[in-house]
């Protein structure tokens, strides 16, 4: 039976906790919404496209991003809500690109359905822009090979999974998620790294994502040990 290869550097698990800061900015209709989306800090765009993942991490299928939810449920513009929900976030590697896509989607819609801008949210149901502040903390968990990676993945919080899969890729503008980056860079296993990178993490619950990543790694370990 072949032994699992050891990494050149250990994978050190971090966790990410977030605090919400109010910007004082609010929108009552689509025009205000799109104009604020263009100007709010990137940390606010990040918050409204990602906080559902953590806040509703148990739901499957998950609710869409905040913009889609508000447009559908509060303004009653379900066609636009559907288009915003369908934005394939995984395709965007920067907040800037994601922001542009959201703006374009709303502006295209307003051009096609100009009366949509006549709808106003009732008092108390306005869209409030919030920004997210992340606190990244080291955890005691680290891995030197795939088995240790699986063991740690079972133990860390979903906040840790979230940090390494979503935040590091989009907010820290890395090309891929941390786990794939380490598997390719420190274990030299590009095939497994790609398999994990090809999961669309936005369509799983965080627990579902944890299980899927573990399954992919375990299958890989089995093929390595069997090959020996």
């Amino acid at each position, binding site marked *: 039976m072949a032994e699992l290869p050891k990494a050149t550097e250990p994978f050190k698990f971090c*966790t990410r*906790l*977030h*605090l*919400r*800061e*109010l910007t*004082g900015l*609010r929108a009552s209709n689509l025009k205000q919404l799109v104009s604020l989306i263009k100007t709010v*800090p*990137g*940390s606010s765009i990040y918050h409204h496209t990602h906080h559902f993942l*953590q*806040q*509703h*991490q*148990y*739901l499957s299928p998950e*609710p869409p991003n905040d913009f889609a*939810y508000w447009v559908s*449920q509060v303004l009653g513009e379900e066609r636009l809500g559907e288009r915003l929900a369908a934005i394939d976030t995984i395709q965007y590697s920067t907040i800037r690109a994601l922001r542009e896509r959201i703006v374009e989607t709303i502006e295209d819609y307003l051009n096609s359905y100009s009366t949509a801008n006549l709808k106003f949210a009732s008092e*108390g*149901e*306005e869209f*409030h822009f*919030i*920004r*997210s*502040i*992340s*606190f*990244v*903390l*080291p*955890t005691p968990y680290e891995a030197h090979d795939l088995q240790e990676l699986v063991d740690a993945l079972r*133990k*860390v*919080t979903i*906040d840790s999974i979230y940090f390494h899969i979503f935040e590091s890729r989009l*907010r*820290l503008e890395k090309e891929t998620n941390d786990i794939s980056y380490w598997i390719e860079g420190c274990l030299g296993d590009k095939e497994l790294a790609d398999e994990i990178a090809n999961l669309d993490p936005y369509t799983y619950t965080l627990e579902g994502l944890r299980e899927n990543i573990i399954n992919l790694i375990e299958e890989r370990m089995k093929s390595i040990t069997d090959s020996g």
Partner: protein
Amino acid sequence: MRIEDYEPIVGKQIIDEFWLIAEKLKGKVIQNINSTAVGGGVAEILSRMVPLLQSLGVETKWDFIKGGEKFFWVTKKFHNALHGKPEEITQDMFDTFLDVSQQNIDEISIYGDIVFIHDPQPVALVKRRQALKNKWLWRCHIDVSNPNLKVWNFLRDFIVLYDAAVFSAPAFSMQLPIRQFLIAPSIDPLSEKNIELSQETIDSVLKKYGVPKDKPIITQVSRFDYLKDPLGVIDAFKMVRRYTKCRLVLAGGTATDDPESDKVLAEVREKAGKDPDIHILLVPSESDLEINALQRASTIIVQKSLKEGFGLTVSEALWKAKPVVASAVGGIPLQITHKYSGMLCHSIDGAAFAIKQLLHSPAYAKRLGENGRNHVKQNFLLTRHLKDYMLVFLSFEYSDDIVNL
């Protein structure tokens, strides 16, 4: 009360993270200041937060300002005015507030690295700040979305001197030139109002109040107040009962400081008449365990308020995995995502329609309840509240969006 007591509920990993954050606060003294040790929501929260922070090794203290009858009468008026209730505010009231505040400014010992001031009563203590090099945080537990501007502008002159403010919901805040954090309130899963109960206990409470278990029970827990719309709930119930057998429980107390509540109760009783399916229960305010049992005995829980603060009764119901139908007012939309973790409504007809749907689709109702419980577990338990406070304390050290600790 220790942080480990919450481990069976939130899991070891979450508690481990608390220790990591607490470690970063070592050496800092957090000094909480409010107006009273007992009575009211702020004292209730602090009585839990302070020992929990101490159990994590964060040096946390709790002090009070001195007031007197006239001062607290004035601050009660301020409180109502901030909530948007019409109140006559006189210069004499402002003078009383300033005089008593000055005595407190002169006498109180300020020693915290972070001075955490709760609500308007002690807000003026920030005038001590100039002589000190510590950080000042103001926690607003009130909905100030539509305040009496005379009172708000008076208080605002003090608020802007703080390093940061904390509000419970985005809609409850005002534009300010200082940093503002969003921290929702929370429920304590280990309190009598929320702990698990045996079926025996639940049944004994139903027996005590004469509520049979023969039909699905729809419950609203709230004091008898027009703003909680108990009359509207009876209308919605009657619309539902045309199609489905069910009972309605309206459980709550009358507030001693609200002369209107007896009038509301009388109207509710008159509207209910001798209907054997409608149970109007006067539950004394200290009967948390009984409220818990009534919620757990319910098939659906309703909160059809016309206006609401944060509306934590919704989180209490969701924590018990109950499907909830509630108005989209105050902090309720933060607790319920429509059709995911409960149903939001805007009218009596809407409430009736949602209740009917849930009674006719028990599997969907069950899923909403389970989602709701998970949502509360993730977002509205005391542990999350505690974590947010620790992160705010840490945020004084950093200004970036991403902080590597």
